[in-house]
């Protein structure tokens, strides 16, 4: 059957003539279409390439043949094979005088060549000539090529002509010229900097197409510098108003919307212009409100415009009324059945909560649903939303969820992203040390190879420095919990290298600090790590250095260090290692072991990783030595920059010989390679000097070079011996929050308990309430688990501010507060249940809190249950609405209509226009078909779509039979849809 159709199609094509391809080419396309496997396809294409290679170089090919060869090359290239042997022929074809060939030539080069290709220089001349052509089609073809091919270097060659074309009588040319200038601006903003006024001028073009195209470059320009375009606000608002009021020609309508694509672009621009500018925003309010009202919420394009409106409203100076409309649309998106709209709804919600965090609360269950949706895209979007609304009260739930998801996916790109988000959130909001360490362990364990090395450094630094306060006890508790968890985890196979580095470093620094673990135990573990990773030099280096530190600390407190046999063998192995770094470390370790306690204490003081290392860049302690050498007649040191200057001069003559070479010779020495990260973590310099000069990472290589030219290289050790974290951002310990960390975790657990009890009551209430309305409809069950999740995610959102406020003002009265909290808890619960029963939950007295009155009661989470209850009542409303909708529209498939409305509408309109309305089905009808199939449970509906063209009695018979089979009769609600489908 399929084949019959194909043949029919081909016959039709043959009769159409005109397409002008040879049988050979049709055969090629067909054989590729029939290829059963990728390998077979590749074989066919390789044959084709061979044929083309041979044919294309033959002399005396007719132009027509050549054109076909070029199209065949395009085909080959499109299938992912290399057709570069034919590029030059495509370039040649652009030189041809006939438009037919020229157009093919341009099409081929725009598809073949990227803007940096060498052949482009051969086309520039042709383009220049064509831009001057009398025929506007030639000019258009050349402009299309300009947009793709002209690079930064060749812009000046065509720029004057393109600018001239802005005044071309044909609007199609003006439009393309605008787009070309836009492209130039993207490539090299400076090249068109003097021409920007042209864009403003073209905004007033008579042709709406040109005006619409001008909005693209203007958007970019305004994004870069909004202030210089503030004067256009009124013009844009006017244009938008006119567009919305259907003043543009009918041909710009799209699915009954007036020029929606232009509206969207204008809204994007207004969002930029109104951002943080009250005056400009006020001009926009009316038109935005108007668009909210005018947009057709049942069509996809209407929703696209509405979504853009929400983006605009959330970006400009806010107006309560517009925000209300935006929230309304958002909630409609979220409640929609369409995944697309849900996705947009989640995105819109993310924008709105930036302005008003409470917007999220009424949608909590919708959000949870999206989070548990099988659609990955939706899930990720929801995680993005959660990331935006994370706060101390819900960080644990959110990060746990994120980690679970992170473990479950394979997409490394996204894994990296979500891992870094977890780390960021954990650093910012961690409620306790224990939790923080555990979270970091999980992240490292599952995505250790993907996270940035900075994250590891940051973690080490956090463990070393603690919270940034002077609470030694908390710091050492953090460290010992880290050590404990690391010792537990260290034996596990397949830990990522980066994680092992962190483990080794922490064990080396703090492994024996609290005396829980003996030195030999920790050392043994470290040896195991080194042994288990024979090929990972960095981990081995970390391990050896850690062993050295532990041994040194042991020596300092006067204990005798007995090296374990496996440790000894490790040292032996490493001192014969190929890596000089490892060798060096092994020898240093041996040396340290042989020193006495006092010497060891001065070179490796315990717990000194946070001390600044003393480094003096000019090495004054060597002055005496240098002086001595100079007296003895040594050459004075010449600074590096002068040195290279001299080198240039001395090499001048030899350079003269090589003048033509573009690459030139490098006369300076190559930069010294950065030492491996490992070398920086030795805690203490081998030499002590007097002044403190912190070394920043950037100056490091240069420093080293200079140092190397000073006679005593061995003394320059200090440069390498610092944990360099200067550049690492510090996020830990938000000053207002951290002090109350224990109290927060405490209260959140209380809240959870409280939440559960309330939730149970809440469901009961809502169920009974629903009973009378429709007892025959199944309840939309909201599992208690989901509700719990909702409560923990959204519960504390309103109390975010107070919490922070009180945490600063009430540090002293914390204990007291807790007491009050507990005593108030039961009453709050009772109160809220009562409210629920009345079905009219009062808004909790939140406003009082915002005044910042420091009464102890303010800090209490019991406020949250109200919110939770509100949330609980929400969904039951939804369910009843939904179910009633279903009952009303039982016969008329309102849902399918809703989802596919734009489709069927188009189907209807286009079908009416086309004489053979029946055959409109081919491509466009794919979706309605699908929708139908879903509804009727029949599986055959899709087969209806014929691949063949032209009315065919057999087809309609088939369809008729099918319709009977499935039992569908055209209903009155969607006559077009059904008549199209079923004849």
């Amino acid at each position, binding site marked *: 059957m399929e084949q019959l159709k*194909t043949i029919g*199609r081909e016959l039709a094509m043959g009769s159409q003539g*005109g397409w002008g391809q040879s049988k050979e080419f*049709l055969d090629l*396309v067909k054989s590729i*279409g029939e290829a059963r496997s990728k390998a077979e*396809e590749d074989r066919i294409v390789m044959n084709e390439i061979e044929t083309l290679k041979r044919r294309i170089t033959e002399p005396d090919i*007719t*132009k*027509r043949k050549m054109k076909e060869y070029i*199209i065949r090359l*395009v085909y080959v*290239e*499109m299938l*992912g094979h290399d057709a570069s042997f034919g590029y030059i022929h495509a370039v040649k074809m652009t030189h041809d005088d*006939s*438009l037919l060939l020229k*157009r*093919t030539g341009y*099409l081929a080069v*725009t598809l073949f060549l*990227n803007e*940096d290709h060498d052949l482009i220089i051969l086309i520039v001349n042709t383009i220049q000539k064509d831009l001057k052509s009398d025929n506007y089609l030639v000019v*258009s073809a050349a402009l*299309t090529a300009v947009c*793709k091919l002209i690079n930064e270097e060749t812009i000046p060659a065509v720029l004057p002509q393109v600018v001239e074309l802005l005044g071309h009588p044909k609007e*199609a040319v003006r439009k393309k010229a605008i*787009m070309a200038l836009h492209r130039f601006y993207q490539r090299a903003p400076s090249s068109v900097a003097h021409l920007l006024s042209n864009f403003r001028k073209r905004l007033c073009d008579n042709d709406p*197409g040109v005006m*619409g*195209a001008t909005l*693209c470059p203007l958007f970019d320009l305004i994004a870069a510098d909004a202030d210089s375009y503030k004067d256009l606000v009124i013009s844009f608002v006017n244009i938008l108003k006119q567009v919305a009021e259907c003043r543009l020609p009918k041909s*710009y309508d*799209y699915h009954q919307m007036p020029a*929606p*694509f232009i509206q*969207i672009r204008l809204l994007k621009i207004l969002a930029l212009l109104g951002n943080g500018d009250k005056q400009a925003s006020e001009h926009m309010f009316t038109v935005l409100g108007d668009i909210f009202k005018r947009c057709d919420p049942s069509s*996809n394009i209407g*929703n*696209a415009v509405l*979504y*853009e409106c929400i983006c605009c409203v959330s970006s400009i100076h806010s107006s309560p009324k517009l925000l209300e409309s935006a929230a309304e649309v958002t909630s409609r998106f979220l409640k929609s059945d*369409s995944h*697309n709209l849900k*996705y*947009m709804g989640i995105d819109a919600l993310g924008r709105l909560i930036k302005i008003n965090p409470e917007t999220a609360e009424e949608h909590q269950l919708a959000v949870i649903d999206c989070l548990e949706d099988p659609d*990955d*895209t939706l899930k990720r*979007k929801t995680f993005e939303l959660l990331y935006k609304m994370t706060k101390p009260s819900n960080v644990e739930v959110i990060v746990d969820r994120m980690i679970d998801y992170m473990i479950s996916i394979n997409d490394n790109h996204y894994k990296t992203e979500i891992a870094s988000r977890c780390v960021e959130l954990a650093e910012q909001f961690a409620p306790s040390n224990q939790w923080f360490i555990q979270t970091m362990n999980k992240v490292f364990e599952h995505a250790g190879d993907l996270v940035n090395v900075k994250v590891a450094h940051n973690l080490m630094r956090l463990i070393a420095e603690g919270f940034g306060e002077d609470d030694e006890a908390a710091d050492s508790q953090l460290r010992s919990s880290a050590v404990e968890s690391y010792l537990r985890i260290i034996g596990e196979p397949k830990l990522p290298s980066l994680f092992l580095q962190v483990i080794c470093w922490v064990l080396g620094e703090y492994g024996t600090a609290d005396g829980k673990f003996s030195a030999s135990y920790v050392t043994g573990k470290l040896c195991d790590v080194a042994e288990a990773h024979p090929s990972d030099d960095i981990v081995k280096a970390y391990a050896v250095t850690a062993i050295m530190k532990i041994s040194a600390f042991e020596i300092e407190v006067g204990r005798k260090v007995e090296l374990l046999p496996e440790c000894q063998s490790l040292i032996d192995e490493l001192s014969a290692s190929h890596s000089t770094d490892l060798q060096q470390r092994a020898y240093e370790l041996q040396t340290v072991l042989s020193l006495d306690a006092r010497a060891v204490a001065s070179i490796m003081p315990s717990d000194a990783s946070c001390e600044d290392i003393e480094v003096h860049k000019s090495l004054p302690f060597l002055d005496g030595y240098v002086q001595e050498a100079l007296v003895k007649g040594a050459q004075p040191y010449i600074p590096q920059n002068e040195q290279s200057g001299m080198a240039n001069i001395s090499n001048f003559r030899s350079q003269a010989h090589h003048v033509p070479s573009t690459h030139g010779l490098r006369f300076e020495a190559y930069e010294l390679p950065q030492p491996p990260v490992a070398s920086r973590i030795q805690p203490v310099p081998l030499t002590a000097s007097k002044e403190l000069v912190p070394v920043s990472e950037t100056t490091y290589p240069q420093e080293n070079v200079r140092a190397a030219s000073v006679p005593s290289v061995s003394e320059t050790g200090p440069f390498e011996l610092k944990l360099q974290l200067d550049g690492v951002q510090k996020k830990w310990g938000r000053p207002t929050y951290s002090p109350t960390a224990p109290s927060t975790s405490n209260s959140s657990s209380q809240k959870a308990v409280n939440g559960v009890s309330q939730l149970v009551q809440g469901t009961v209430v809502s169920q009974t309430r629903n009973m009378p309305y429709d007892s025959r409809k199944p309840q939309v069950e909201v599992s208690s688990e989901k509700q719990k999740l909702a409560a923990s995610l959204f519960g504390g959102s309103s109390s975010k501010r107070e919490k922070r406020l009180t945490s600063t003002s009430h540090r002293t009265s914390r204990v007291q507060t807790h007491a009050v909290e507990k005593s108030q808890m039961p009453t709050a619960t009772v109160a809220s249940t009562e409210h629920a029963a009345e079905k009219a939950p009062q808004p909790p007295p939140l406003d009082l809190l915002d005044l910042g009155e420091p009464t102890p009661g303010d800090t209490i989470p019991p406020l949250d249950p109200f919110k939770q209850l509100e949330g609980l009542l929400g969904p039951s409303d939804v369910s009843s609405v939904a179910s009633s909708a279903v009952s009303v529209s039982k016969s008329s498939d309102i849902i399918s209509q809703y989802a596919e409305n734009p489709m069927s509408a*188009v189907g209807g309109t*286009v079908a009416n226009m086309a004489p*053979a309305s029946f055959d409109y*089905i*081919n*491509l*466009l*009808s794919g*979706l309605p078909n699908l929708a139908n199939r879903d509804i009727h449970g029949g599986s055959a509906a899709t087969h209806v779509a014929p*691949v063949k*063209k032209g009315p065919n009695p057999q087809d309609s018979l088939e369809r008729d039979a099918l319709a009977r089979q499935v039992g569908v009769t055209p209903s009155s609600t969607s006559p077009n849809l059904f008549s199209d489908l079923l004849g």
Partner: protein
Amino acid sequence: MIHFVLLISRQGKVRLTKWYSPYSQKERSKVIRELSGVILSRGPKLSNFVEWRGYKVVYKRYASLYFCMCIDQDDNELEILEIIHHFVEILDRYFGSVCELDLIFNFHKAYYVLDEVLIAGELQESSKKTVARLIAAQDSLVETAKEQANSISNMIAQATK
């Protein structure tokens, strides 16, 4: 901005590709392989968007053909979905109820249409009528040129016989 347009059949065969950002041939194959894997395996009820390497890919299925466009993070997905539909409607009008075979055998025509709808990764014309008019103008010129070429080559062929 639209970074590229892909048309893939349900079997994962490439029907049309257009790249508005520079990609090497190797990258192109990789992109196609990765994306067709992701998109073809998605269920019918799921959303039409896929997040991919920091970009978003909007796709829509028409019969056996998937139209995909890759866009930036901050672009409006619903709009792109309609741009795809806009393109399909224009193709439909041009080919007269388009189907996959039209695109297979006349992919270069589809490229010409695409060039009138999108340029440099932006929608250049949102009026179907204008696009149709432009394409028709080009085609009529091409047709006359072709007729001339045909008659000339016929004459040459006859003369050389």
